[in-house]
């Protein structure tokens, strides 16, 4: 290992040891609960603001260092399998940014631990009592994260060779372990999803946690320790088999293995830290006297843990993508070299693409989290959506609008550099209109801010027409329409320089992949339709009179399956674009149009079914995006290209759009952090340990705005500094021979 790498590892190891040390040392200091102060302050600082600041900064850096490896490894894999050297260069550059940010993330984490222990000793006592088992695992994992990260980065050149391993034993292992590694990997992913992202049947049936689940940890997994044991045994076996198979394949494969290992460790760190956050919102294992009587796994596996895991995973990907995009924008704007400009233009596109990928799925994860918050505590849910925090969602709507419209604008601007894209320019105004109208619906509050005279003129507190736009059916319809519009933008970008598609029969194996994907999407939609058809209305406190309402929606799910079959059928008949278009149109009409209107019917006649209706909409949109993408890949495989992509031939406005996206997503993260913490109101642990400090009041929007603005400024300044610092080591040169200016679409 080089001196630099060794130094980096020592720094990170020291930070990890410091973190463990402060936790271990801090614990005895808070062990004597009866003599503990509840709160402390220092230097006249507001302790809550200090914790807020440090925690949010740590979260932002954490999002970056966890999000970037996810797509960094994917980029490296794409580069290893293809002939475009830019992907590997980009993956390496992302990892370089990562290594600069990692130490800062760890330092902020240690600082956060210090301030919480110092300012809130009693809170930390309760925390430690329930969760200290996870603290040690978390601290130890830091070593693994540091070592893996630096090894992954500093062996990039050493393990860059893609040629197969020449040793006979190695080739034998690579060949015979391929299938076991794939099977173990699939099992690992499935179990990890089940353990860390799936909230159990209570979530599906909208029943919420039972009293027993609340006291013991609310997932079915807590009553099935066998599954966790299986996972614990499977994981090292999978890693060993996969690692050996990778070693046997090639050095590059081994390097990719380390990247995947880095992601596994990083995601484990994330889910552990998430459990501390959600434990404060949905604590488990307390008896009526407020004493913790549960266990660590029960405390970790609390009701909101899994929804937050999913939301943060997707959010990290979007966050990382947009930050990388902003980095590329800055590099583009500050260089005059045409090759560098071309490279960073392309990098910005990739960053935006990754950001959009995360962004498209985020509303679903956010809805899931919000719904589970509501299931856990209707008080929290009502406060979030209809009470004190309802205006936060107006601000969120503004930011999300910026994100989606900005991401779309960047794509449309990018089409200017693609020869042949002018064919699709007429679509832009329709997509823009759809986005703006949907955004206006989304941002309309249910409760208009009125003076008494205005309310008297209007005849009441709520506008006779606009009030309906403030309810969930309208919001769900709007967001699904935004997602489909953005997806359509991206589809147009993909085919911008493509001519007529080749014969479907020449698309090779991809055709059969489309069939497989269609089976998957149809099964998903069909399974939910079956669930809805057989729904026990009494469990939702509904009578059979509500059955027609429920069945109405289930039949549309069935119709969507038919639409999927039709789309695939048309593709096989060489009318793939028509099939895609019909599928997208049908989904838009049903998910946004029909279900948007029928949602009001459900509100009035079968209110508890409304959450199931939202799942219907989500599934339709997700299934459509997945299937339409599969058809698109097969459809345009081998299509004739009618123009080239002139990377670098783009103005400054799209680059500033990338900066807008980065700033906006950082602000959104700050805003949502305020919301998540504020939902606890004056509770440290919701419903268990009350906040009796002088700061036990939810800050208003103005204070929140200025605080989040300050945090964002500090974060961006630190990131800029770190990236500059990382750049002092020497800037990477563009590849010796760039591919032709018209590479295949990414």
């Amino acid at each position, binding site marked *: 290992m080089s001196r630099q790498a060794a130094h980096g590892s020592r720094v990170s190891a020291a930070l990890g040891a410091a973190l463990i040390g402060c936790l271990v040392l801090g614990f005895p200091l808070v062990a004597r609960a009866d003599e503990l102060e509840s709160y402390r302050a220092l230097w006249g600082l507001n302790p809550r603001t200090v914790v807020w600041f440090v925690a949010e900064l740590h979260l932002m850096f954490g999002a970056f260092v966890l999000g970037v490896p996810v797509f960094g490894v994917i980029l490296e894999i794409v580069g290893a399998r293809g002939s475009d050297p830019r992907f590997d260069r980009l993956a390496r550059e992302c990892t370089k940014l990562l290594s600069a940010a990692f130490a800062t993330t760890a330092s902020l984490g240690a600082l956060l631990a210090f301030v919480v222990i110092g300012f809130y000793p009693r809170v930390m006592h309760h925390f430690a009592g329930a969760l200290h088992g996870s603290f040690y695992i978390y601290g130890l994992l830091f070593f693994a994260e540091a070592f893996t990260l630096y090894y992954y980065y500093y062996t990039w050149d050493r393990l860059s060779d893609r040629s197969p391993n020449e040793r006979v034993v190695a080739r034998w292992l690579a060949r015979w372990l391929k299938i076991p590694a794939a099977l173990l990997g699939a099992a690992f992913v499935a179990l990890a999803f089940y353990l860390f992202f799936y909230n159990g049947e209570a979530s599906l049936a909208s029943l919420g946690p039972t009293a027993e689940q609340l006291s013991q940890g609310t997932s079915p997994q807590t009553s099935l320790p066998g599954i966790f044991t299986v996972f614990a045994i499977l994981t090292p076996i999978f890693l060993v088999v996969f690692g050996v198979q990778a070693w046997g394949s090639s050095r590059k494969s081994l390097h990719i293995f380390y990247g995947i290992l880095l992601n596994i460790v990083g995601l484990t760190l994330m889910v552990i830290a998430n459990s501390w956050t959600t434990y404060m919102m949905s604590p488990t294992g307390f008896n009526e006297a407020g004493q913790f009587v549960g266990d660590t796994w029960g405390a970790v596996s609390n009701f909101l843990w899994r929804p937050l895991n999913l939301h943060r995973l997707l959010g990290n990907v979007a966050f990382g993508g947009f930050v990388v995009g902003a980095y590329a924008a800055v590099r583009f*704007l500050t260089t005059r070299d045409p090759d560098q400009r071309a490279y960073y233009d392309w990098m910005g596109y990739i960053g935006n693409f990754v950001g959009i990928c995360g962004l498209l799925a985020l509303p679903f994860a956010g809805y899931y989290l919000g719904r589970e918050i509501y299931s856990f505590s209707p*008080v929290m849910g009502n406060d979030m959506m209809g009470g*004190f925090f309802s205006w936060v969602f107006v*601000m969120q709507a503004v930011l999300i609008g910026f994100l989606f419209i900005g991401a779309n604008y960047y794509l449309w601007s990018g089409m200017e550099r693609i020869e042949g894209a002018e064919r699709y320019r007429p679509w832009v105004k329709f997509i823009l209109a759809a986005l703006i109208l949907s955004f206006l619906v989304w941002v309309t509050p249910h409760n208009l801010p009125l003076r008494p005279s205005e309310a008297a003129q209007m005849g*009441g507190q709520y506008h006779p027409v606009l009030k309906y736009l403030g309810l969930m059916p309208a919001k769900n319809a709007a967001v699904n329409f935004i997602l489909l519009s953005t997806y359509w933008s991206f589809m147009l970008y993909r085919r911008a320089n493509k001519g007529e598609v080749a014969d479907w029969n020449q698309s090779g194996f991809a055709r059969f992949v489309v069939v497989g994907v269609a089976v998957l999407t149809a099964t998903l939609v069909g399974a939910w339709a079956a669930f809805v058809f057989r729904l026990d209305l009494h469990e939702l406190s509904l*009578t059979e009179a509500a059955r027609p309402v429920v069945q109405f929606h289930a039949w549309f799910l069935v119709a969507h399956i038919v639409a999927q079959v039709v789309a695939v059928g048309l593709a096989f008949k060489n009318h793939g674009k028509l099939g895609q278009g019909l599928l997208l149109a049908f989904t838009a009409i049903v998910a946004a149009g029909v279900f948007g209107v029928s949602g009001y019917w459900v509100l009035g006649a079968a209110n508890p079914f409304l959450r199931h209706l939202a799942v219907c909409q989500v599934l339709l949109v997700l299934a459509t995006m997945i299937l339409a993408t599969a058809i698109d890949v097969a459809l345009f495989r081998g299509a004739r290209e009618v123009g080239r992509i002139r990377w670098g031939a783009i103005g400054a406005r799209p680059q500033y759009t990338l900066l*807008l996206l980065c700033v906006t997503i950082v602000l959104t993260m700050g805003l949502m952090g305020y919301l998540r913490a504020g939902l606890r109101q004056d509770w440290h642990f919701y419903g268990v340990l009350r906040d009796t400090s002088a700061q036990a009041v939810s800050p208003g929007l103005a204070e929140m705005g*200025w605080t*989040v603005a300050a945090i964002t400024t500090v974060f961006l300044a630190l990131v800029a500094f770190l990236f500059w610092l990382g750049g002092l080591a020497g800037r990477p040169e563009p590849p010796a021979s760039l591919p032709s200016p018209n590479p295949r679409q990414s």
Partner: protein
Amino acid sequence: MAHGVGIVAFCGSLILGFALLGQYLEGLSGGAPAAASGATAGQADAVGLVEAGDAVFHGAGICFACHSLGTQGSAVRGPNLGALPPQWPEPLHVRAEKRIPGKSAVEYLVESLYMPDAFVETGFPKGVMPAVAEPPMSLSHEQIRSVCMYMLDRSGVSVGPELEEEIRKAQAVFGAPPRGSPEEKGAGSVEDDTDVGFPPGDPAAGAARYQSLGCPRCHGERGGVAVDGAPVLFTGDRSHSELLVSIVRHAGPVDDADLPNVPELVSGLSVRGLADLIGFLRQTSEEEP
């Protein structure tokens, strides 16, 4: 350099815009929150309680998020607490009076706040409305009284000291301290209650009530037997209010569909009936070894 300045200025203006948006929306939405959310009425008169109740309804209680009041509001998660034909043709106090035979409108409303799942309107799910006196809402007895006054006032009932007293009596079952008691001055949640000077009850009437409710099946003929996990009904030196709270709040649902659901059994009792039942249990506790 030019682009560097432009980048910083652009990002700075976005961030500043966000902060100013927050400031603007706070002004639009009514200003920053007060240090304590919700209102406490103190020893207010009846009219003052109605105003305090309005503040609780739209503040600490977040009632407005789920309940409309006639034509005011458009929340549909919970039943409309006013008159809105055709689904809600009658005012609240009229509906409440008819809801449970033998239970007055005030008793019904008070119990619905302390035990929301005791009576749930058809078409609305159980387990959604929280018990407002318990964490996390933890409304005080006074706040609950004020919101009752507010709802009844909106329903067209004449508010005054008599109505307030009626509400207090209904609240006594749930441990609310009597007017002017030392506990009232400092009491917050139900957890802070002490004995409320509850009437002693008639043990003979309580014995008859004990039999008619089927209590012996789980607790034996005189409360001294524990069957299938049901507790022994030994009162010890617990106060009347402690016993009341224990019966109406801590008697949880049983899993076996054949066994009676205790809250549903006792929820049909009047205050007198509960007092008689406790009187009988005290007697048996004193007599049993």
